[in-house]
């Protein structure tokens, strides 16, 4: 069950700032619960991958990330998707403001 995501992307100072929130428990092996965490994140700008990340259960619950892209313009399409260790996935797309 993939929870909702939120994203904000804006262009200022010559770069595009992308801030994204993912709803996810990110449970560790130490918590006594089943290990459940996001493993892969992909950021796309107008359909082209610009950041590929691999992360561990050490990322906090309901992960929030900021990324920066060179240049960019209002209306650019930014997509962020994730895949977790159980094969669940989610994505969000927004236009740069």
């Amino acid at each position, binding site marked *: 069950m993939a929870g909702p995501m939120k994203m904000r992307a804006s262009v200022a100072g010559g*770069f595009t700032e992308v801030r994204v929130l993912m709803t996810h428990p*990110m*449970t*560790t*092996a*130490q*918590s*006594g619960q089943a290990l459940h965490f996001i*493993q*892969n*994140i*992909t*950021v796309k*700008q107008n359909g*082209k*991958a*610009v*950041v*590929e*990340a*691999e*992360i*561990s*259960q*050490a*990322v*906090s*619950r309901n*992960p*929030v*990330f*900021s*990324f*920066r*892209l*060179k*240049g960019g313009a209002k209306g650019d399409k930014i*997509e962020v*998707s*994730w*895949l977790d260790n159980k*094969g669940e*996935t989610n*994505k969000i797309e927004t236009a740069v403001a």
Partner: protein
Amino acid sequence: MTRRSLLAFFGLLLAKPLTVLAAWNEQAFGAKTAADALKNIGASAAAPSKDIVIEAPQIAENGAVVPIEISSNIPGTTSIAVVIEKNPFPLAGKFDFKENALPFVKLNVKMGETSDVRVVAVAGGRQFVATREIKVTIGGCGG
């Protein structure tokens, strides 16, 4: 291969998410020491650099949410990895930047206790490292 197993096989292929590349470095993320994690991402011999900027609190009251902002001023940086020395599994993340991304990431991590945090940047095939100690008042690995 029977027709049924062939169909099942293609069913599996279709079920794989198409938007995310599912590469995950199990060995590096499974490493229990920072040295092993660094070895598994090919960064054992990283050279210390002042051009990797780590912004984080000196003291984190809540180890469950420790904000870390990283940027690399090393020209041609293509990758940044975060290794939390004293966490049970030190490698917290690895970020690969394609040509249109700046070598910057801000994230929140869990820290079990006060620890050195090492950030490894790769530029032009060479590894660089910067280290920052973050003190933790209440550990946050039970989350």
